[in-house]
């Protein structure tokens, strides 16, 4: 008891510097987004002016719109394809297709700069020979879907692997043909994983810079590309801090929602734990 208490105190003390290291830069960005001065090294007073100007900046709003369009579009397609791939790899995992699993992993461990460049070259060739796929939101979307698929597939696959494998036999045994198995068993039981996969895919797309940089066209500047351009031109302005703060806020809200949802689900799925009540 004493030991565990002192250990807990130690861990609590020990973790604060780590948290400080992780979150201090984020806190500074949020703080300076409310800075009155346009110079971001000195805090001269509180102001929400940058947020106001942000919402009047048509370039930023357009970039945000494109990011959302790209993120939602690519994540939707990526989730569908990734779910199918995850299920396929699971279903035929016994058929000597272990190498398929490796192929699924490959895009995840490949450096994104290599991935981005190869996508760019590929699209250039395709465009040159067919006239299709000129650099723009479409090529970015194709590239994003490509790197989203393995992530979604892995999330869905690991959910399926955790299930009793006899569930699939049972569904077949109860007159479900392969289509019905997919819609009445696979989709319902993997729904949490599919939702998580979609959120992951969206986040990956929304903040992707490297791959977007190589596959974008003149009219497809997304938010990360805009921020990069703005910083490269004029340095970090409070307006950029404001955009960043909003993005942090969005991610925070999403993460907390996700946590609450999964926690309430976990409680519903587990039987009550009486030993917790005795304390």
């Amino acid at each position: 008891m004493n030991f565990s208490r002192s250990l807990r105190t130690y861990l609590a003390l020990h973790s604060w510097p780590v948290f400080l290291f992780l979150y201090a830069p984020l806190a500074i960005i949020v703080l300076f987004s409310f800075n009155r001065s346009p110079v971001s090294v000195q805090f001269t007073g509180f102001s929400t002016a940058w947020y106001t100007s942000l919402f009047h900046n048509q370039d930023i709003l357009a970039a945000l719109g494109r990011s959302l369009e790209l993120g939602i579009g690519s994540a939707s397609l990526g989730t569908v394809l990734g779910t199918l791939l995850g299920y396929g790899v699971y279903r035929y995992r016994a058929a000597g297709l272990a190498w398929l699993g490796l192929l699924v992993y490959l895009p995840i461990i490949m450096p994104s700069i290599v991935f981005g460049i190869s996508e760019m070259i590929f699209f250039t060739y395709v465009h040159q020979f067919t006239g299709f796929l000129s650099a723009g939101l479409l090529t970015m979307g194709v590239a994003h879907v490509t790197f989203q698929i393995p992530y979604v597939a892995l999330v869905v696959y690991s959910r399926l692997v955790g299930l009793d494998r006899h569930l699939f036999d049972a569904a077949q045994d109860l007159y479900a043909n392969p289509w019905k198995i997919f819609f009445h068993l696979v989709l319902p039981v993997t729904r949490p994983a599919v939702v998580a996969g979609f959120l992951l895919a969206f986040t990956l797309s929304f903040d992707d810079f490297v791959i977007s940089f190589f596959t974008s066209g003149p009219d497809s500047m997304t938010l990360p590309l805009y921020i990069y351009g703005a910083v490269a031109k004029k340095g970090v302005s409070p307006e950029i801090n404001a955009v960043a703060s909003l993005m942090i806020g969005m991610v925070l809200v999403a993460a907390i929602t996700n946590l609450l949802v999964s926690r309430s689900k976990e409680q519903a799925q587990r039987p009550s734990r009486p030993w917790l009540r005795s304390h």
Partner: protein
Amino acid sequence: MNAIPRLAQAIGDGKDFAKPAAEIHDAQHGKVHLQDVSKVFADGTVAVDRVNLEVEPGEFFTLLGPSGCGKTTLLRIIAGFEDLNGGAIFISGRSMLGVPPHARNVNTVFQSYALFPQLNVAENIAFGLRMRGVKTVERRRRCQDMMVSMQIDVFAKRMPHQLSGGQRQRVALARALINEPEVVLLDEPLSALDAKLRQELQVELLRMQKRLGMTFIFVTHDQHEALVMSDRIAVMDKGLVRQMGRVDDVYERPRDVFVAEFLGLSNIFRVQSKQGADVSTSLGMLRLSHTPETLQHVMVRPEKVLLSSLEEKGRGINDFHGLVREVLYMGATSQYGLEIDGYPLVATISNTQNGRTRYRVGERLRVHIEPASIVGMGG
């Protein structure tokens, strides 16, 4: 231990129920016929080796054997989860070659129950009807009837993880039975339960099967379960059916050492020489009432060994003097570890017999074995 009287009661109850459904259907309905069925796994293991089986409609048939003997594979072949490498399979007279599991009118109760985690009890039970496109109203009614008859209607809205092992087992059984399949396949459905609940559910399962008149094919490695429940059994080992027949016949007249040892306790002696009905064994000369052609071993069940005190008169043949080495008191019976001329012999004596039936360790006594109680066996 109290399974036997309960069982008698259960079967007695069964008589009051409606006529077995099997009588209504044609003679082939619910019949399972396997012809030279073989299954070789990708790694070369022969899981099932040219098995021939005929399970009659309305029969409680048990596949009994140690783990890895191929019994579960055989069950999965009947369900359609495994393809054959040879042979043919007929259910209700129709060939099942190339018929996928979802197109077979057969339902399985899995060892893990395999209840759908995202569906509640009622939805789990109705799953088969839903997949077959039975209308909602009828589905609800049949599901409700089934839950009432299985006494699980109070759990209708519960999720599988909120149920106890016994309740899950009932739901799994209801989910199979509601479809009125031609054959119900049960893959060690009771093995995950504790002993008392297992005995209760054995009775319940048997009562249900007799009432519905459905064909049940039951897989187990538990010989007691096989003895209590089955009409007929097939004892399997290494992919082969070693012996098949009525459960009492197999118990009383095992064909070989494996079957004798797997099903119940046995005393087995190697036959050294044979002269007519008399065989010479390590125990001494034994007279048999019936000697098969290939005679390598003789077997006596412990409860067929008769014990009496030395003062009583012997019967001339198959009489021995024994020494009590060990006594295991088991309530209704006692198991004696005897020694005859240095060779061990196990005898089981009922403790409720009249007269003196209890012997102490170190006591000498008279041992008699009726010729009809000795079974001659092959390898």
